[in-house]
C-alpha cells in the first residue's frame, strides 16, 4: 500500500543546531516533492519544491535533498531559531494528476 512517513511526530533541538527532518515514501513515484510549514491555526505555507531529477535545493537556511532510490527526502534547517518552531509537512505530487499527498508532519521545537 502507499505510505508517506515523516520520521517522528516531534523533534526538539537547541537553538543554533541543524534540524533534520525525514520524509520516506512507499509505492509512490513522485515527480515533485514539496515541503510546507504549518503554524497552529494557520494553513500550510510553501517552503521548497524539488523535482525528481534534482538532488538538492537550497533557500537561505533551508536545504532539501531528494533520493528517489532510497525513496526519501531530507529537510534541513541550519542555524535553527526558536521562530523555526512549527509543524513541517512533506507532500508528494506524482505528476500524473494534480493532487498533493501529505505526510502527517513533524512538530519541530527549537529551544532557546
Amino acid at each position: 500500500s502507499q505510505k508517506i512517513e515523516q520520521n517522528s511526530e516531534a523533534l526538539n533541538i537547541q537553538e543554533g543546531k541543524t534540524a533534520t527532518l525525514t520524509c520516506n515514501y512507499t509505492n509512490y513515484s513522485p515527480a515533485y516533492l514539496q515541503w510546507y510549514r504549518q503554524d497552529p491555526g494557520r494553513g500550510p505555507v510553501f517552503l521548497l519544491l524539488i523535482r525528481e531529477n534534482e538532488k538538492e535545493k537550497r533557500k537561505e537556511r533551508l536545504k532539501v535533498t531528494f533520493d528517489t532510490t532510497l525513496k526519501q527526502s531530507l529537510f534541513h534547517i541550519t542555524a535553527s531559531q526558536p521562530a523555526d518552531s512549527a509543524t513541517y509537512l512533506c507532500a508528494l505530487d506524482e505528476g500524473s494528476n494534480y493532487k498533493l499527498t501529505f505526510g502527517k508532519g513533524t512538530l519541530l521545537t527549537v529551544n532557546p
Partner: protein
Amino acid sequence: EAGVTQFPSHSVIEKGQTVTLRCDPISGHDNLYWYRRVMGKEIKFLLHFVKESKQDESGMPNNRFLAERTGGTYSTLKVQPAELEDSGVYFCASSQVTQGSGYTFGSGTRLTVV
C-alpha cells in the same frame, strides 16, 4: 498581493444541518484546490478546479459534499446534511500553474459537527 481567504474560520453545526464554506483564491490563480484534515490524520485532497471546471473530484467523500466555482473566481463547498465524521479543518489552496510550483493555502475553516 492578498492571500487565499476562507470564510468562516470556525463553524459549529448540528448533525443533519447544512454548512457552506467559502474560498477566495488569489486573483488570477486559475487553479483552486480543496483539502481536509480530520483529527489525527494527514491533510487529504478533496478536489481541484481549473477556472470553473472540476478537473478532479476523486477525493470528495460522498455525495453530501458539493463544490462549485461559478465564474471561475471564488469557490464554495457545501456539506448537506452534515454528519459527525465531517468534522475537521477544510483548507483551500490556489496556484497559478498546475504543477511544479507550490500552492498558497488559506487558514482553513474548522468545522465541528455535534
